């Protein structure tokens, strides 16, 4: 049944919040501040888990179900993603379709939970979320198809295992185009600048964060943790393409992959510190760029 190592899943479950901390810390350093401790996201989660909750009297069971479904679907998607030369716990033909649609399921329930509150702010966030994800999805699929075509394989673990420094030598243009598309999808799906600003103080300008305004306590912990896992998931795919070092030694490979995740986190932090959020009307154009980049990678 198990077709790979369980380690990628364990690493993700344990280290995902750390990646967010790295981004936050990078932003602090760039802004000349000391920044919060790297373990702060973990403390935040623990604290949320120990809190009570306030529910809007408009909401129904959908609102309470949303975070659980969201977290469950991203954990399951994670079970299909390889890391650092280790195959994912499960792999089968077409598994990346399941990954994308599991994320879709999580999003669907987050959106419904937002609409369940009856708040116009959350409705607005939900509307923007579905808009941008509808455009991010083709970009993601075209990117994955480009990788599949490059390697001739139909499952994420073997695809990423087949990409090596040698592949980069003879297919650098294709891989870099794919990578660029995937990075845009990564930023959009994880609600980062330039698509969304997770730390803004104004509800009107938010996308993802405004959808979860009404969640509190353990529900909010599940949402935050799910978001961290989702970021780890996309990051793991990206570094699987960008840093395909397979030296044979498991420890070195894993260390290199973790190092690459660190670099990606710092890079995301630098992007966030050095540019502003795009105007909402511009975001579709950015996602269109991602679609074109991935399509180009396929056409080459």
């Amino acid at each position, binding site marked *: 049944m198990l077709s790979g190592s369980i380690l990628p899943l364990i690493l993700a479950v344990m280290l995902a919040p750390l990646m967010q901390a790295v981004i936050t810390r990078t932003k602090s350093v760039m802004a000349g501040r000391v920044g919060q401790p790297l373990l702060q996201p973990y403390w935040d989660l623990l604290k949320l888990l*120990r*809190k*009570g*909750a306030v*529910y*809007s*009297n*408009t*909401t*129904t069971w*959908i609102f309470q*179900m949303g*975070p*659980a479904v969201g*977290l*469950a*679907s991203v954990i*399951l998607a994670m079970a299909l993603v390889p890391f650092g030369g280790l195959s994912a716990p499960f792999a*089968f*033909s*077409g*598994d990346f*379709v*399941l990954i*994308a*649609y599991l994320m*879709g*399921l999580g999003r*669907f329930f987050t*959106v*419904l939970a937002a*609409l369940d*509150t*009856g*708040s*116009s*702010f959350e*409705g607005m966030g*939900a*509307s923007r979320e*579905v*808009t941008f*994800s*509808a*455009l*991010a*999805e*083709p970009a993601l*699929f*075209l990117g994955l198809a480009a990788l599949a075509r490059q390697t*001739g*394989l*139909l499952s994420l673990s073997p695809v990423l295992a087949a990409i090596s420094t040698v592949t980069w030598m003879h297919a650098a243009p294709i891989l870099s185009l794919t990578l660029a598309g995937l990075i845009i999808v990564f930023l959009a799906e994880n609600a980062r600048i330039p698509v969304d600003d997770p730390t803004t103080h104004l509800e009107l300008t938010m996308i993802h964060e405004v959808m979860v*305004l009404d969640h509190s306590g*353990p*529900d909010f912990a*599940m949402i935050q943790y799910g978001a961290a896992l989702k970021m780890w998931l996309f990051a793991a795919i990206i570094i699987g393409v960008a840093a395909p070092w397979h030296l044979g030694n498991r420890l070195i490979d894993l260390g290199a992959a973790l190092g690459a995740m660190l670099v990606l986190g710092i890079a995301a932090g630098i992007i966030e510190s050095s540019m502003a959020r795009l105007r909402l009307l511009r975001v*579709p154009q950015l996602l269109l760029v991602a679609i074109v980049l991935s*399509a180009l990678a*396929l056409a080459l």
Partner: protein
Amino acid sequence: MTALLISLLLFGTGAAGSLIFANRGRWPTFIGAGSVIVGSLFGIVPALRVALGAPPQSLRIAWDVPYGSLYFRLDALSAFFLLPIFLICALAALYGAQYLEAYRGRKALAPPWFFLNVLTASMVVVVLAHNAILFLTAWETMALSSFFLVTFEDEKESTRQAGWTYLVASHIGTAFLLVLFVLLSKANGSMDFDRFSASAGAGLLFVLALIGFGTKAGFVPLHVWLPEAHPAAPSHVSAVMSAVMIKTGIYGLLRILTFLGPPQAWWGWTLCAIGLTSGVLGVLLALAQHDLKRLLAYHSVENIGIIALGLGVGMVGLSAGAPFIAIAGFAGALLHVLNHALFKGLLFFGAGNVAHGTHTREIDRMGGLLRRMPGTGATFLIGAAAISGLPPLNGFISEFLIYLASFKGAVSLGASGNVPMLAALSGLALIGGLAAACFAKAFGIVFLGHPRTEDAEGAHEAGLAMLAPGFILAAGCIAIGLFGSAVVRSMAPLISTVTGLSLIPVGQNLAEASNSVARVGYFGAVLIGLATLLSLARRIALSPRRVATAETWGCGYASPSPRMQYTGASFAQPLTEIFAAFLQTHQSFTGLEEFFPQAAEFHTHTDDPYQSYVFRPLFRGISRGMTYLRPLQQGKVQLYVLYIAITLLALLLWQIS
């Protein structure tokens, strides 16, 4: 076959009985609904047996019609389409028995029961017919009986208009079919399907079938009747039409393909292109709708697009000699036929409950219905997730197969076969995202939040007979979502019939595809388990803590009113704005003109671009052209006798020369 004849006989008896006892209060309902249900139960047994691999059966009775014979044949393809027909019609009869009660006293209830029986019987005969005359007779009966069902509320101008559009579209389609069958029968001079041969011009025959059957199926741009007719019909009829009747178009196309020999690559390309346009345009137009049933009708166009994409991918694979792509593509498309019947039936029943409970179909006048209609809401949610192609439900399984086929094609086919595969991939991804957005709107605005109007405030749950069909179909959606691999494996005889490949390689390729589907099923089961576990964990974490209820956080605004909630129109606005080039959304805005503006109004409505820019001008042109023939019609008998004489003379001269 005997069981199928008994079921046809029952439908006939039910039709006659409901008319004979029309004046006896509830008798027509009992007879009409009962005959559909019992007849379907009789019929579903042999259909299931043949679909699962029993040998095909046929029956031939002489018929006094020239070229015609009562030639029935039940093979894997017919059997597969019979299953949803019997299931949905039986559930629709159960549903209708309660739904139509609301019209008692205002409308005669015997005719809809008569026509529902006739419609069911004619659909059964359409998929069983093995003779073109029999097929066309049943096809026409199907069109007419559904026309009379659509125009049930004929006191409404919009309903009459919708019925008229449907009737015209239907007959234009049938005209192409007539030509098609004549051409097919030319070689052997027989209208029996097994003596058809496509000796000349298989490409032309394919195009004729595509237009003729595509009109029924609702391929863009032939779909224009669909968003008119489906909302106008009573909800149980909408369910039957949308879930199974339009699929007879897909059935016809597949049946014709079996006569045409190995498909050419461009057929696959054409179907991919049609699938892509139907899928994307269908879902975009659905997003822009304000009427719940109209929204669902446009989603039928979208799902027919997905089916066409699967067929197209399969055909490209078949013509390229790549069995896995062909088999996975066809399996995905055919499974989607079944899946769409399940969730679209469910959604139309749900929409009927909503319309019944709130007396409106306007999405933006609803809200908060989940509290008032818990059963309808829960099943509608399952249908919404299933139609959006989300795991762990059935819609994902069929889309997954099409994805699998097109990924395989993108990887293994050369530059020639690659383009349709990539179009299918990115198209499916876009359609999936947009469909999820659309159903987040449909479910979220209708069932969640505060009621926006008094209608929604006073909504009430439907009765048991209107709820049960939804629950049965929801269970089906979950079952195929979890145990899809068994279904996929059992489709071998069907796929073999459709593709013309022999049973053993089909079985092997299906087994390979079903391996992945089985994993998807495990993941679905684990997903349900894990989500339940997390919900429990959450409850345990909360149990010692203080759990309070309060108003929704209004970002500081103290007294929000239900009317301030996001509406469906505003929810969809960013997407309709992005795709404005494909949608002709009309906006009208009044008010906010003086310093102290009083009332303001904002309206949007989105017409079907093909209706307003293609068909309406076309038909206007035709009717203008027809006015030139007016002088011929003088109303004088002498003149008409002259016409007859001239015609006879002309024929005579033609015969002599």
